């Protein structure tokens, strides 16, 4: 990721035009991220859809499970399945606009590291997931959750959510980039992403269970945070190494 120095403009009459200034990674990421968030804020599509989908799923769960309240393992499972499936919607749409409207080609012409797109998209998806959870978790607490977890339990849940979101964001960016080039992208995304995300589900669901117990929340086991951290690290490295190959022309 070394940045070549910009060529000083030569004053000789037959000199080549000056090379474009190489854009450092941070600047590129900031610009791309601003674009992602601006697009979503201006014409909200992904986040409202994901949020609405999560609430609808909770209602479906109520009828499918035939229960008014859930707690413990069941509550943990309901919450994570809901979040995961809502995330699938976000992943499917992640690269669609760039692919269809030439944004990807435009980016390829820019004198910057391709990793900038990976970081921007992953951070963007992460932000969307956090926004989703701001709606989904209270909805879940309202609609289906039996026990009332303490503030401390919610704080621990938040840490778990953030780590899990990082993993989902990284995997989602990779899978989204692959899927956008296929003709069956809406099918490929869940088929590919769900198996890859099962370790996240395992760690997150196991971690959440003690927080939503009927008899009062017990502490979060730190080991699940380590598993999620390891997962995020591995997929972060993988995405960093492989993403460039996905957006060549």
């Amino acid at each position, binding site marked *: 990721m070394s940045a070549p120095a910009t060529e000083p403009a030569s004053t000789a009459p037959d000199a080549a035009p000056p090379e474009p200034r190489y854009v450092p990674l941070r600047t590129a990421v900031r610009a791309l991220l601003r674009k992602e968030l601006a697009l979503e804020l201006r014409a909200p599509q992904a986040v409202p859809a994901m949020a609405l989908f999560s609430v609808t799923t909770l209602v479906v769960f109520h009828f499918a499970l035939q229960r008014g309240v859930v707690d413990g393992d069941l509550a943990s499972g309901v919450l994570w399945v809901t979040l995961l499936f809502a995330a699938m919607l976000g992943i499917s749409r992640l690269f669609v606009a760039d692919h269809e409207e030439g944004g990807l080609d435009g980016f390829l012409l820019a004198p910057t590291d391709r990793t900038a797109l990976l970081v921007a998209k992953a951070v963007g998806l992460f932000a969307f997931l956090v926004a989703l959870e701001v709606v989904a978790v209270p909805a879940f607490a309202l609609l289906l959750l039996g026990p009332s977890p303490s503030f401390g339990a919610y704080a621990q849940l938040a840490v778990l959510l953030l780590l899990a979101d990082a993993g989902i964001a990284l995997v989602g960016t990779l899978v989204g980039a692959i899927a956008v080039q*296929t003709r069956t992208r809406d099918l490929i995304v869940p088929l590919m992403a769900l198996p*890859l995300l099962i370790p996240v589900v*395992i760690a997150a669901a196991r971690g959440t269970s003690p927080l939503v117990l009927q008899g009062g929340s017990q502490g979060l086991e730190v080991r699940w945070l380590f598993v999620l951290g390891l997962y995020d690290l591995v997929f972060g490295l993988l995405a960093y190494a*492989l993403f460039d190959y996905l957006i060549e022309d």
Partner: protein
Amino acid sequence: MLYGTRLRALSIATLVTMTAALALAFFYAPMDADQGFMQKIFYIHVPMGIVALCGFVWGGINAIQHLRTRDAKYDLRSYVAIHLSLILGAGVLVTGSIWAKASWGHWWVWDEPTLVSFLIVFLLYATYQPMRFSIEDREKQARYASVFAITAGAFVPLNFIAVRLAQAYTHPRVFATADGGLPAKMQLPFYLSLLGMTLLYITLWRYEMASKNTSAKLRALRRKLAGDDAVAPVGRTAAPSLPTT
């Protein structure tokens, strides 16, 4: 590179090793104390599983080579490796299910973390071919398939760790014979079977590579002899093809 050169020697070696392994498994290895005769399934189920997983990782390694060298032959090697592992994987799941039925009375149990991890890995790799098929541009298809193969290959160990962690707290390891601590008389047939299964995989891999190579050369020969018109254009396909020169 010719893939068919050592096929005869390889297949003979496979035959000899597997026959010896299975003969030992049935006539030399002692009967298992807890599980009795049905433990014999273990002599093909576990080696198939180990070889299938190594095959997936071998597919990932070839994919790395493909991305580094952009040589189409590595993509073909990766494709065949994953294809073969998927078939073996199906065999693992079926024999594992049969074993579960014999041991526990149910056709599927969630208690055995290795089998569960295998199911997840199988489901993931099952998307490989549909994904390839849905990308029309050959070069892009190969490149994306390689990225997938590397991701999935790195995912295999991560997945096993995660599933094992999930099980450790609710169910004790039940099929302890799959671990170390095998009695000596069981070790010989097991390792021999593992060797035989590896040889089988290599043999079948070379078999399929030779077959694909031959197809490509035949196309090239046809083009040279009968002109470009005699060669039907390759339609949409998930399988990589070697350059036809």
